[in-house]
């Protein structure tokens, strides 16, 4: 919680993170937020104000589909899961992401060595 605003996620990254979490199995919004927090070792905290619009956007784009099911607390919650389209999209985007970070990393590393 204290690390909430430590850095901003690059545009579009949140969608990728959400899809990665959802790929693990049907999950509701609250759990997605918690999972992102845990998996990032508390470095990332997704605000509700970003999470839910992103979920609805992904659902609208048919990358996610949602069903109402009973949650672990016994109340009904909206569970999201990947569609086939979403799965394909996630694969492509993940590859793109790793290529991008590799390239950016290469350049940034080189610059730092040059400076030092």
């Amino acid at each position, binding site marked *: 919680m204290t690390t909430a605003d430590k850095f901003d996620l690059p545009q579009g990254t949140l969608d990728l993170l959400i899809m990665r979490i959802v790929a693990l199995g049907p999950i509701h*919004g609250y759990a997605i937020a918690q999972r992102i927090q845990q998996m990032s070792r508390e470095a990332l905290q997704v605000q509700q*104000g970003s999470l*839910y619009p992103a979920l*609805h*956007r992904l659902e609208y784009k048919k990358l996610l589909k949602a069903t109402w099911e009973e949650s672990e607390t016994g109340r009904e919650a909206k569970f999201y899961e990947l569609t086939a389209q979403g799965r394909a999209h996630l694969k492509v985007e993940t590859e793109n992401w790793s290529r991008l970070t590799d390239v950016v990393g290469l350049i940034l590393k080189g610059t730092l060595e040059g400076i030092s």
Partner: protein
Amino acid sequence: MSWLSRLSTRKRLETDLDKELRYHFESQVAEKMLSGSSESEARRLTRIEFGGIEQIKEDCRESRGTLWLEYLVQDIRFGLRQLRKSPGFTSIALLSLTLGIGANTAIFTLVNAILLRPLPVQNPNELVLIGDGRLQGLTFSVPAGQWELFSYPFFHEFRRQAMSYSGIAAVNSSQFVSKASVAGSAYQTTHVDLVSGSYFSVLGVPAFLGRNLIESDDNAPGAGPVAVAQLRVVPTPFQRRSVRARQDHPHSVARLHTGRRRASWFLRRHGRPIHRPLDPALHGGGDLPQPQRS
């Protein structure tokens, strides 16, 4: 899900959205209470973390993509309410629109008929009017040295010498109404134009029945006058048969192909006059010039 079905299930989506966010809220409260906060404190903290819940809902609606449609529906409803509230303004606005649209339609109809629709002749773009065509039978007003009307001998001379045109035709400058009787039928009021023998061949308007005027009709000195009638002047099959019966007459000519159905089809399809030569039975009204029978 289509736009419209989304809109029709808007209420359900709204309750779902509310339920979804409330679930998150309650889960977060429960988590805080587990770590030792009192319920009121947990709620207070969660509310702060959530920020404006309405704003979140609005963002969700926006990413759902139906927002513009909802706005549109709201705007239309609002507009209709406003209009109903001020009937005076509404009626004036409606009247203005009605008049505006009506006037524009009328003007366009006129422009279309006069300027845009081509003349019902073969090559309207190749037609040239010699003179400015504004004056009708007002020879006394023609300024010296400027001819807007031409005498018949001038026309003949002009046609003999002009090489630049594929054909030259003349039409009388005065328009007059006369009475005509076709094939012995009752006299009818009709519009008569005096034209040169080349008139129909230059315009490329074929005759539906019989033949049109040809050059020789006004070339041979002393030849009898020939008239071309519009088909609607000869309305009944009986009269048409009687015209056909006179086929052997030197001035009403062969190649008759008649038939009312075809005629009406032709008229509807092209909306242009159908000409047919027949013996003239033209009787001018009053001071009109008469074709001279030799």
